[in-house]
């Protein structure tokens, strides 16, 4: 991009970024502060609006980005620092997902991708390097698992086409009818409500873990989950009554009461595990 092609405000944005770089980064490799600033400003995720871009830039982890970009440039000193700081973590984190030789293979693959294939250049400094590396390892571990078994669907299946799990103890018809109604009720949830249930029931995340992610206190999340479950239950009853009148709702009630009307909530919410291609491609 030549000087005449630069968007308005580029120079002031660059000056601002350079100041940030100098304040937050110890320039210790051949990569200069100016080059780092220029590369940051070329990131496609940065918003054109100055205010929003300012916020985005101020949240970058510039020192980690500096290390990653220096590694991507092939700086030996940078790689030595990266090795000291992160190789053990990559190996350890891989072992959280896979065992024995598989874990070792995964760690080696990740390191080879980052190092030899310069995948480290994909790091944009939007988080700490370690969290990004954790995400890389997690995704590659999931892919490794997916290659040998059913994989997780890339996106929520069409709720209308998924065969809902039926209760094991109620009649097939009743159980399926109930499950389908529950599925419809879940389909009406807002994304944040659905995500809350998925994190809690599908992923088993604790309230503690979810609270910061979802921007609410533990108590609030607890209340929301309880309210959602109540709402789902009421919606099912309402829909049953609307579809077939009070008698339909009444006919389902024994199934519920006999119950064991158990539903795989994760499946109903969209985390259905289905057969797919082996490479985990979305």
């Amino acid at each position, binding site marked *: 991009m030549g000087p005449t092609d630069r968007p308005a405000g580029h120079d002031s944005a660059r000056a601002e970024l350079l100041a940030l770089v100098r304040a937050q980064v110890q320039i210790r490799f051949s990569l200069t502060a100016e080059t780092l600033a220029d590369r940051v400003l070329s990131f496609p995720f940065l918003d054109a609006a100055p205010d929003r871009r300012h916020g985005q830039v101020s949240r970058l982890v510039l020192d980690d980005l500096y290390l990653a970009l220096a590694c991507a440039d092939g700086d030996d000193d940078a790689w030595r620092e990266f090795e*000291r700081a992160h190789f053990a973590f990559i190996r350890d984190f891989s072992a959280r997902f896979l065992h024995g030789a598989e874990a070792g293979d995964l760690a080696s693959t990740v390191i080879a991708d980052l190092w030899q294939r310069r995948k480290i250049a994909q790091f944009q400094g939007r988080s700490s390097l370690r969290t990004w590396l954790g995400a890389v390892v*997690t995704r590659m571990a999931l892919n490794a698992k997916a290659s040998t078994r059913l994989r997780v669907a890339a996106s929520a299946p069409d709720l209308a086409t998924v065969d809902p799990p039926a209760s094991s103890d109620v009649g097939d018809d009743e159980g399926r009818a109930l499950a389908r109604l529950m599925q419809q009720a879940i389909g009406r949830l807002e994304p944040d409500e659905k995500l809350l249930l998925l994190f809690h029931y599908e992923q088993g995340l604790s309230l503690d873990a979810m609270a910061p992610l979802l921007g609410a206190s533990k108590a609030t999340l607890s209340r929301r989950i309880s309210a959602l479950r109540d709402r789902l239950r009421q919606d099912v009853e309402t829909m049953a009554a609307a579809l077939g009148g009070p008698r339909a709702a009444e006919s389902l009630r024994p199934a519920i009461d006999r119950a064991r009307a158990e539903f795989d909530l994760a499946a109903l919410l969209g985390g259905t595990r289905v057969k797919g291609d082996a490479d985990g491609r979305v």
Partner: protein
Amino acid sequence: MDVSKSGEAPIAPEHDLNRLAAFVEQRLDPTEHLTVVQHLATCADCREVVAGLMREGVSVGVGDRRSEDRTGPRTETPTGLPPGLRWGIRTPMWLPIAASIVLVIGAGWFAAGRLHAPTSTPEVPPATSEPLKTLPGPPVVEPPKPPPADPGTTRRSANEREVGGRRFKLEAGTWIDTAYDQFALLPAVDVRTAAERDALIALVPALKPFLDLGPKVTVVHQGTVYRFDLPR
């Protein structure tokens, strides 16, 4: 662009690991945060990535790590993690549990089944007239108000009691059996009225001592979770 799922091709921006990692570290602005929430609600793969990071205790502090990254080889913990990091040890039990977590609707069935003491318990309404109740849900977190404990119970500390050899901890105003595991998938009975309590105690007298702890008690008894949330 980001590490592709297959290790080769670029992946779509919505699956971008940079953005997911930023989401985990809460570095996104509200607009982008909302976009990620909407994506995660429909993308099981990205959800697993985020949940995987959360289970391991991210996010890692950056500023406090920067200097040590530059200072040569570090002493490693027995687990191989550099010292000072907050990556927790993962509890292995979540996998089978999460895979089979169920939503059981209609606690009425259970109450009806368990409390079926036909004529002697008129207080228990028939199952068909019970509003549907959910079974094991998240623990209700409320502002802690320590209920007065019965003098007969053994006071171990301000927030801990022992009743009948069982230990209870006070959490958010509820005395919770230390044996209670919300992910254990045990059947549960919610008891919210005095009538329900009396009917239950008539059938399972062994529960009575636990009620001395207060109106809010969660106790595991013979493979069933009893959750008392009675009016004061």
